[in-house]
């Protein structure tokens, strides 16, 4: 008889290649980055062989980095709020369209997710630049000849990031709206509720899990966004990701860059995990 | 020696006993039904025969060979799954030819034989259709053709008709039975539908919570159930509690009913079983007096719920074309000798 694999071991053979690949090429680099953040750096002699938390003390204590972290957090919060404000109504509108229009507009709203972030951000850079459309419009309307530029501004970054990330909010809310039994809305109407009341008391609460998970996705992606802040914000309006980039590729202070990256990762995971816990606790009873 | 033998088959899932000490001998060409409510172990038994589940203990012997440990792809049995389990990415012909291909039959021959099998189940028109383009009944036939074309020693049917609508189901019962007799293939059918089992089988195995409740031919099973579970599950019946008060006499809440009590001890509690259609209902004031509480017209018959001194009873009377009894009417029930079955103990 042929030697055969014990049934109990089969799943480990099937997942084995992935697990080994990930352990070697994800586990090892992540651990090394953590270790690197514990070394100090000297501008003349490079990375030191010592073990220290000095980098963490520096990043967390330095007002320069505090400002960058604060700005990143504020940006993420603002982008998330705007995405909720415009993404939730849009998802609702989409769910109300006839099926033909719905598939067209789903394509319009979700399609950009497949287009490179660089390209999408470039579009805003063209709007925002000193000789961009914004300036031309302002001049044509007689607001003076000064170029109006949103390049390198917080506002510019916010607009571009909302554009890049709002599809995630729409799709997430859309998914939970899909699960709603349309008859529950009819039932509300039949019981004498107005359309507005049905929306507020019946539809919105059922869409809440989608709004929350959309928020977490948008928040996490904004907090770690690189391409859009790098192009629109540039050196003048640094966020955590662009600051880490500069530490690595311009200043060459790798340990400090690694520290920023580790802190970003911890913040990211912390937010996702606590948000998930919150969602589970609040909605576990209602939604399976 | 019988063709297919189950020897004290047991199947446990952890502490749960799905099948307990199942023993059965099936003759060549016989049509056997495993009948019972969901969770009674009938599907588990079928899967053990198919080789998809290993028994915890016991043996399965086919044509003198112990196949208990034979893998499913070497048993050569034909199986029709409840979901039909057609291969959605293959045409009807390719579905049917798959088993032949696995047996190394050449392409031309297996296409020929597959088409022949599809012809046999009246699907000659649909040989190139994909399952998604077929109706439930057509899919069911493809599954049947696929199972039969490999000329299996045993055909296993797992609730094959349960996904069809009522009318089609009745037609398929007859067709399936005729086909089976025609080919002469030994068949085991798993079903929870007692009509299906009664109408198709040579013998029926009634199962209850992993145990065999009774094994008998359809008429025997219906007329002479050996316990209240079988009498209640196979067909409809009225179960009446009483006490033996004398020779051939049972007392039901003060009403004396005469019945053969030979096998039972004086004074013991018993349960009487009588089928609704065994009653004769008339205006002639003799027999058991009852008042009609509900009357339901079923087309071919009337179903009444009546109340009398023996408690609530269900009565079925054939539709003779005239109006039946109405709610509130008083009528008298009689029954022929032997219509009552007596079981030991209270229900």
């Amino acid at each position, binding site marked *: 008889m042929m030697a055969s694999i014990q049934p109990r071991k*089969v*799943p480990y053979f*099937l*997942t084995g290649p*992935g*697990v080994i690949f*990930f352990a070697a090429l994800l586990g090892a*680099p992540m651990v*090394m*980055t953590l270790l690197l953040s514990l070394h100090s750096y000297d501008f003349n002699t490079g990375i030191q062989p010592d073990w220290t938390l000095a980098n963490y003390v520096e990043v967390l204590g330095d007002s320069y980095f505090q400002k960058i972290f604060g700005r990143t957090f504020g940006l993420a919060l603002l982008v998330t709020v705007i995405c909720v404000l415009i993404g939730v109504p849009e998802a609702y*509108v989409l769910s*109300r*369209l*006839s099926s033909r229009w719905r598939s067209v*507009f*789903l394509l*319009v709203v979700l399609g950009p997710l*497949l*287009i*490179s972030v*660089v*390209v*999408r951000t*470039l*579009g805003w850079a*063209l709007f925002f630049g000193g*000789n961009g459309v914004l300036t031309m419009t302002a001049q044509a309307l007689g607001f003076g000849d000064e170029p109006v530029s949103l390049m390198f501004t917080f506002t510019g970054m916010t607009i*571009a990031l909302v*554009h890049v990330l709002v599809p995630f909010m729409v799709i997430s809310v859309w998914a939970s709206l899909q699960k709603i039994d349309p008859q529950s809305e009819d039932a509300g109407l039949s019981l004498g509720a107005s359309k507005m009341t049905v929306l507020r008391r019946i539809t919105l609460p059922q869409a809440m899990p989608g709004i929350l998970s959309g928020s977490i996705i948008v928040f*996490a*992606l904004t*907090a770690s966004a*690189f391409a859009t802040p*790098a192009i629109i914000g*540039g050196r003048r309006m640094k966020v955590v990701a662009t600051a*880490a*980039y500069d530490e690595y*590729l311009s200043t060459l202070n790798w340990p400090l860059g*690694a520290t920023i*990256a*580790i802190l*970003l*990762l911890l913040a990211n*995971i912390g937010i996702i995990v606590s948000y998930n816990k919150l969602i589970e606790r609040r909605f576990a009873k209602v939604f399976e | 020696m019988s063709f297919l033998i189950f020897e004290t088959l047991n199947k446990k899932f952890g502490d749960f006993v799905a099948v307990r000490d199942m023993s059965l001998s099936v003759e060549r060409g016989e049509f056997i039904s495993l009948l019972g409510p969901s969770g009674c172990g009938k599907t588990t038994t079928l899967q053990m025969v198919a080789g*998809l589940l290993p028994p915890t203990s016991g043996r399965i012997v086919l044509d003198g060979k112990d196949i208990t440990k034979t893998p499913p*792809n*070497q048993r050569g049995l034909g199986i029709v*799954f409840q*979901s*039909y*389990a*057609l*291969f*959605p990415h293959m045409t009807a012909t390719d579905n049917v030819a*798959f*088993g032949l291909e*696995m*047996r190394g039959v050449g392409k031309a021959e297996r296409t020929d034989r597959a088409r022949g099998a599809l012809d046999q189940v009246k699907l000659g028109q649909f040989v190139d259709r994909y399952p998604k383009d077929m109706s439930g009944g057509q899919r069911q036939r493809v599954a049947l053709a*696929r199972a039969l074309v*490999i000329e299996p020693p045993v055909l296993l049917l797992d609730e094959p008709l349960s996904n069809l609508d009522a009318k089609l189901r009745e037609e398929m019962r007859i067709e399936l039975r005729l086909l089976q007799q025609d080919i002469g293939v030994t068949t085991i059918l798993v079903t929870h539908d007692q009509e299906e089992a009664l109408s198709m089988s040579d013998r029926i195995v009634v199962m209850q919570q992993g145990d065999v409740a009774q094994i008998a031919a359809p008429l025997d099973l219906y007329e002479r159930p050996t316990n209240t579970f079988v009498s209640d599950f196979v067909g409809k019946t009225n179960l009446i509690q009483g006490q033996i008060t004398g020779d051939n006499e049972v007392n039901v809440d003060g009403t004396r009913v005469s019945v053969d009590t030979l096998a039972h001890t004086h004074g013991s509690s018993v349960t009487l079983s009588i089928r609704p259609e065994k009653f004769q209902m008339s205006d002639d004031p003799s027999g058991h007096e009852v008042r009609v509480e509900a009357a339901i017209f079923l087309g071919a018959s009337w179903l009444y719920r009546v109340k009398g001194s023996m408690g609530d009873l269900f009565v079925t009377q054939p539709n003779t074309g005239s109006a039946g009894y109405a709610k509130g009417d008083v009528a008298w029930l009689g029954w022929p000798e032997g219509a009552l079955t007596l079981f030991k103990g209270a229900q």
Partner: protein
Amino acid sequence: MQNLGPAARIFHALFVIFILAPLIMVIAVSFTDKGYLSLPTDGLSLRWFRAILDNPDFIDAFWMSVWLAVISASVAVLISVPAALAIARHKFPGRDVISAFLLSPLMIPHLVLGVAFLQFYSTIGLGGSFYGLAAAHVILITPYALRLALASATGLSTDAENAALTLGASKFTVFRRITLPLILPGVAGGWLLSFITSFDELTMSVFVASPATQTLPVRMYHHITQTIDPLIASISTVLIVLTFLVMLILDRFYGLDKIFVGKG
């Protein structure tokens, strides 16, 4: 458009304009006949599309991205399919941990991955190599491939496989003839989504790619940080058109909404 008041319609129109505006802007600028950034007010011109051909470094970067995406998406699928079958159809100790591990890159910012790979590869002497970049991309996109493979493996009933088994097929034949064809649509969708994700990736690649392995997004990013000109707009227009074609395929076969639920 039933049940929608005028306010909702106006909102919807503004939202769609907001979504499309930057893309239309890029496309408009790419057709300018001027030598500098401007809208094609004096007539359309293809000069900036011809200019792409004079910039072989962009074309090289494009092919680099295509190759990278093909290889890494294929490896990601090869890893994901068996893993998805195991996770979807077996209960085994450690299943949840393994599945969380293989999906974990979704929770790690690309910047962090970039930083980690930069240091890792320079330590083990793979800095700037194509295979290092490809491996990094595999890590990044495997979760996408895995999720689509998981979705199709979970929806797969074992009945058809059992049927094939009882008809005499060996386990390998069952996999090749039944299981694989049935999960193929999900696998192909996973491959395509992985391909696009890899093709578009910037943040991690900016750290890992060397001048010799520059991908198109990295090349474009470096160009934009230096200068924004109609050339970069025309390249972007080409990308928009290509992506649109892929998007139509994905939408046709899977529905974009199904692919993106929970992405990110």
